[in-house]
């Protein structure tokens, strides 16, 4: 009786582990894209696109920026061209002796995002700094 009970217990544990693994594999079906852009006194507008496919159920976008001098505007547009968020950071320190950092971060967690090309537009004015864009797209 005890042996049967042990066998059943082991079987139960085994199926539970297999099931958990399957669920975790399913929930991990995400695409993560990381991009870092260095700006060395640049004033050129730059557009970074994020492709959102039909299967995407959730999108997590994290834009991190750090500026040591200059003025940087970051804008996020959906595929229809509607602005979904923006921010600007400015550092007026131009001397090499004093360093002034300004940080800007934008996080967007969007459920059922519009399918198509989302754009992150960087509009720098003599910017020394960097921008990192981290996108996670989760399947439905």
């Amino acid at each position: 009786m005890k042996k049967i009970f042990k066998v059943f217990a082991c079987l139960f544990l085994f199926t539970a582990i297999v099931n958990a693994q399957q669920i975790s594999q399913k929930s991990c079906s995400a695409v993560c894209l990381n991009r870092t852009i260095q700006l060395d006194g640049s004033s050129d507008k730059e557009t970074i696109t994020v492709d959102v496919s039909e299967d995407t159920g959730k999108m997590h976008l994290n834009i991190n920026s750090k500026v040591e001098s200059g003025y940087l505007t970051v804008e996020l547009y959906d595929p229809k061209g509607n602005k979904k968020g923006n921010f600007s950071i400015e550092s007026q320190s131009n001397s090499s002796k004093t360093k002034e950092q300004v940080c800007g971060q934008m996080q967007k967690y969007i459920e059922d995002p519009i399918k198509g090309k989302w754009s992150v537009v960087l509009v720098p004015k003599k910017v020394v700094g960097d921008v990192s864009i981290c996108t996670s797209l989760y399947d439905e």
Partner: protein
Amino acid sequence: MVTFQFALRYTMNKLTTNINHIYLNSFGLLLFLIFINSFSCFSQHKTKNEQSQSIKGKLQLDSIWEPVVYLSYISSFKDMYTMSNEIIIAETKVDSSGSFYFSTESFPKEDNLYRLHLSKKESPAASLIIGGKEENHIFLIANKHSEIFIKNKIRDSLFYDYDINGYQPNTDFKSIHTIINNDNLRSPNSNLKKEFINKTIYEELRHIADTASHPIVSLYALTNSKFESSYLENQKFYENYLDKWKDENSSYFNELRSKFPEKKNSPALWIIISAIFFFLLGYIINNSMNARRKKDNKHLKLLSVQERKIYCLLVEGKSNKEISEAFNIGVSTVKSHVSSIYNKLNIKSRKDIVNVSNL
């Protein structure tokens, strides 16, 4: 005996005078004390009032946050998400109990928009985090006499859930801000539903803008209602809106006014302006024609009757011979008349005659 009585009366009088003096002095002292006391009470009351003109709050801070609160002045709605060291106007430490305090004594009398934020440890003071549980800022409306109290509700998220009390416009502003920034409120499955919800939200924002009694709250709702795209549809509404707040001269309203096209003049006014223009134009043309005619007449008046007849034929391009035949006179006579015409009109050739006649 008389002397004794006199001395006694003198002494009594003196004593009464002294007593009166003492009473008067005591009364004066009492008045002085009352004055000092009331002054002290008044100044205490004033100090208490001055202390109440503040932005204060109690924050439950996670260990990732530097216990310093920064206050920035936001001069226009488009700068709400702009960060630089230049716009930070004050900073204060958060004490061990989580309390912080800013005096609004140096603020302008008029309401303005401010941003309050904290930075993460090892991050610069000028750091802005938008969205998510780590959002590090809130907006508030304040003036010189505002008393505002802020309290966050959850320890692990700074301003994800917070209360703002004391100055009513802030509660309304916060409600609008929540509607505008909730992306997932607008994320049903179908695109049609999304558009419908967006349209409803924009209409609701316009309704808030129309009914809100506070100018900044009203304007914030309108600015986020995508009014540019619906301007032609609701032109009357926007004209009435601008008329309602015509006395508002804050930078926020001036920014809005610059977005609207200038108010067009009514058609009746255009008709009147056109009529005046054409009347003046007619008057000028008529005057210039009259001046020309007068000039022509002036030229012709210099000529004799015979010369005028010859002048007319010269204008028609007739030769001397043709003119002599027409008037039955000799060619030499014609030449003499022509020469006289040239002298009187101050011209040198037949071509000039045509030019003079065209003047």
